[in-house]
């Protein structure tokens, strides 16, 4: 199917030769959970500031964190989904720094002993010439999110909204295994699909449920890794791609001009394409990590891991392969259908009730979903929210496959039943849309209309 290609790998052509781009990513993904990592406060988004806040989130004196086991379960599930090694013992540590959106004066995170070590994700890259890239993972650990500072409420003061403070994040760290902006973007898209399938994260980058730090460096082939620049806090796959292109280009030019690359944390401005330095990471703050004495080490046993394993859904890569094989879909089609678990479920339910045993029947169904159903869904609407059921779509596709109606008529029927989920067979009957293939009848009809 897809194979690891080493040719066609992206290179930047500089004055002095070809440069390889090295990209590593750090994702902060919000864990899907009812309550926060260490408090009972709700994680639901609220427009009203400071309404989803427990005493511990405000760090009142004497407040203690209580670990939300659901978050651990979600972390383990993600780790399994990424083929990582679940650590039987992990430790929450305190990362100390002063900031108004960090009420405790420290973030509870995992540093020396994370929940998951290793793991990987195989990503297919490219449109025409598709190849597979294995991106290895360093680790996954859990940590608290910070609150939010609000600057536009008062003329001379800043305000604090702690609704987000203490929400569980998983930090997923890759090795520097990506070699182009395209690979990084493909990795992120695959990761989002995986997280949605696992239901461990909403994986909605626009909504802020995943933020990415991008590490970029360049080197001549065969050279050791060079100094990297960290592009912080990015929310859009498109801009991440642009930022990697811009930064790698800048680095090549700088190195070829005899300049050094400073190990900096930077911000990418998507409007100008410019990159501005925030701070030097080499002399970054000393976070004084130490084990949080309020939280005993997290001990996970095999039975816990096995219980999570049992509820693991089919992973997207496996689903794509199965769709290609069982339903004779093109890889591209399989990928689209498996991107969203609800879509894949809709597709397979429709297949299940489709009574037509014909070659290409499943693919016909796939094309109806990708082409016609998607076209009728407004943006942001889930397939579970539309009126049309898989059963009705199967009836409709059966009519087309049987030759009862043409594709064009089928589409107009779909329009008619889109809001009502009415039976397409009834529509055909009432409106006399049935395709007439009986020659005698047809001749009679033509005679009536044409030769009178």
């Amino acid at each position, binding site marked *: 199917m897809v194979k690891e290609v080493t040719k066609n790998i992206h290179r930047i052509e500089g004055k002095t030769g070809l440069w390889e781009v090295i990209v590593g990513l750090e994702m902060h993904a919000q864990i899907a959970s009812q309550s926060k990592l260490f408090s009972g406060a709700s994680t639901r988004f609220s427009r009203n500031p400071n309404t989803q806040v427990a005493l511990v989130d405000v*760090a009142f*004196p*004497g407040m203690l964190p*209580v670990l939300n086991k659901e978050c651990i379960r979600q972390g383990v599930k993600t780790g399994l989904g990424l083929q990582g090694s679940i650590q039987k013992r992990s430790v929450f540590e305190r990362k*100390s720094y002063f900031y108004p959106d960090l009420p405790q004066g*420290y973030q509870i995170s995992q540093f020396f002993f994370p929940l998951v070590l290793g793991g990987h994700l195989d990503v297919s890259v490219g449109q025409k010439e598709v190849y597979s890239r294995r991106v290895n993972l360093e680790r996954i650990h859990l940590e608290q999110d910070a609150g939010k500072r609000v600057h536009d409420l008062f003329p001379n003061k800043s305000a*604090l909204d702690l609704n987000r403070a203490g929400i569980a994040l998983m930090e997923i760290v890759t090795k520097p295994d990506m070699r182009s902006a395209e690979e990084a973007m493909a990795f992120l898209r695959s990761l989002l699909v995986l997280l949605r399938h696992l239901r461990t994260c909403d994986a909605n980058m626009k909504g802020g449920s995943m933020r990415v730090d991008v590490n970029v460096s360049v080197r001549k082939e065969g050279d050791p890794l060079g100094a990297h620049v960290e592009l912080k806090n990015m929310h859009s796959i498109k801009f991440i791609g642009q930022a990697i292109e811009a930064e790698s280009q800048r680095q090549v030019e700088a190195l070829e001009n005899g300049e050094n690359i400073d190990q900096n944390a930077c911000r990418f401005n998507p409007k100008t394409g410019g990159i501005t330095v925030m701070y030097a990471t080499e002399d970054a703050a000393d976070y004084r*990590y*130490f084990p949080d*004495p309020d939280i005993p080490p997290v001990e996970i046993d095999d039975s816990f891991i096995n219980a999570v394993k049992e509820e693991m859904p089919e992973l997207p890569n496996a689903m794509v392969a199965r769709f290609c094989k069982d339903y004779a879909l093109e890889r591209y089609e399989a990928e689209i259908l498996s991107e969203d678990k609800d879509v894949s479920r809709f597709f397979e339910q429709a297949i299940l009730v489709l009574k037509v045993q014909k070659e290409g029947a499943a693919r016909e169904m796939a094309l109806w979903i990708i082409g016609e159903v998607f076209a009728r869904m407004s943006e942001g609407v889930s397939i579970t929210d539309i009126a049309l059921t898989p059963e009705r779509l199967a009836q409709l596709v059966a009519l087309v496959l049987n030759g009862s109606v043409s594709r064009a008529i089928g589409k107009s029927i779909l329009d008619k039943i889109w809001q009502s989920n009415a039976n397409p067979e009834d529509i055909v009957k009432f409106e006399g849309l049935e395709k007439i293939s009986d020659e005698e009848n047809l001749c009679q009809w033509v005679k009536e209309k044409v030769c009178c």
Partner: protein
Amino acid sequence: MMLYKYTYSELRAGYEAKDFTVKEVLASYIQKIEENQNLNGYITLCLEQALQEAKKADENFAAGQPRKLEGMPIAVKDNFCMKGLRTTAASKMLENFIPHYNSSVIDRILNEGVIVLGKANMDEFAMGSSNETSYFGSVLNPWGNDKAIAPGGSSGGSAAIVAAGSSVAALGTDTGGSVRQPASFCGITGMRPTYGLCSRYGIVAFASSLDQAGPMTRDVADNALLLSVMAGHDPKDMTTLTEEIPDYSAILKNPISLKGKSFAYIEECLSASDEAVQRNMQNVFALLRERGAIVDPISLKLQKYAISAYVLISACEASSNLARYDGVRYTHRSQNADKLSNLYNESRSEGFGAEVKRRLCIGTYALSASEYEEFYLRVQKLRRLIYNDFMSVFAKYDLILTPTSPSEPFVLGEIQSPCAMYAQDHMTVMNALVGLPGLSIPSGLGAQGLPLGLQIIGNFLSESDIYALAHVLEKEIAFQSWLKK
């Protein structure tokens, strides 16, 4: 009737026999608190509320439905958060902080009918061994009479209050000796329970892996009763234990025989103590041996590192625990700050006292990436070794005996060097480092006529054994409390 002189068991008998009412007892305490004002034991009083509670308590007695601690007047160290009552931890930083929640231990004792009289003075954020670091001024030890004698610390206010008749009992917290040493200095009984026995939820944290709440009372029976109510698992504190808590007072009904019991005393602790303390300990040993018990010397070689280890680890945790007092939310906020970094610096500079700052500096330094291995990790390893040492002792002996303090109570202001002050915790930090319980009971008077204390250290969850021995010794020693003198 000088009702303030009674222990709670005596009060309880009186309540039940209708000899006097809770209201009358309260009146007696209120008068005594007035008289004892010069001791500076309380930071905040809540006597009006207490009087209302007394009314309710009398009703409960009249209805024949008194709860376990019904009508027990109590003082609460000012680091336990109490709903609607100012909680300062004796710091300018929290001078105006009024929590809207109760600590779990407070909830437990309130549910059993205690009447809180007020919040007791203490060393600032529980950092100190003399109560001199309080933002609200030093506390006087009632035993000093005309001399300004330290009540010990950090629960110095609690100890002085109980000794002087300003409350029948008090809550303290013990991080490295903060219940036991002041109990010893004021001639009362103070327990540091097994780590995790009492919830830390709602107690202003100093050093999380060491902090434990403990009861401070006039005798062992009251102590055991109060701990029975304070202790127990709390889902809000992940470090609390899930073990069933026995009724410690029930154990005291039948005094144990000392015959065949084996006790160890730590040589290093004895030799580090002054003469009067050593003599006092020898008297206790003689008494035990007379009763058929075995008393052997043992050596705990790591004892000499205990103070350093304790100072380091507690400072490390404190430097992190106290980061939340930043001038942003409920704390003291400097008026001299024009930008964010100044807000932190100025608020913390103004809000914290010298000893707190010293420990924050030590802790911040020791946790820095370059020093972490040298200090924090080494101390954690040392804790493990000390644990091993204790376990090998408990394989052979029932309990360990030490003086609570190496010397008689000192004069306020006498100890100026921070290191000399840290050394006050010589006897009490070792078991705290590994979470073992320790009880201090009065054991006699020193050369200057000031109280001495005996510490009984037990294995994990051996509070029953500790109380049982203390109960027997209490009778034998027959210590004359300051109130009954």
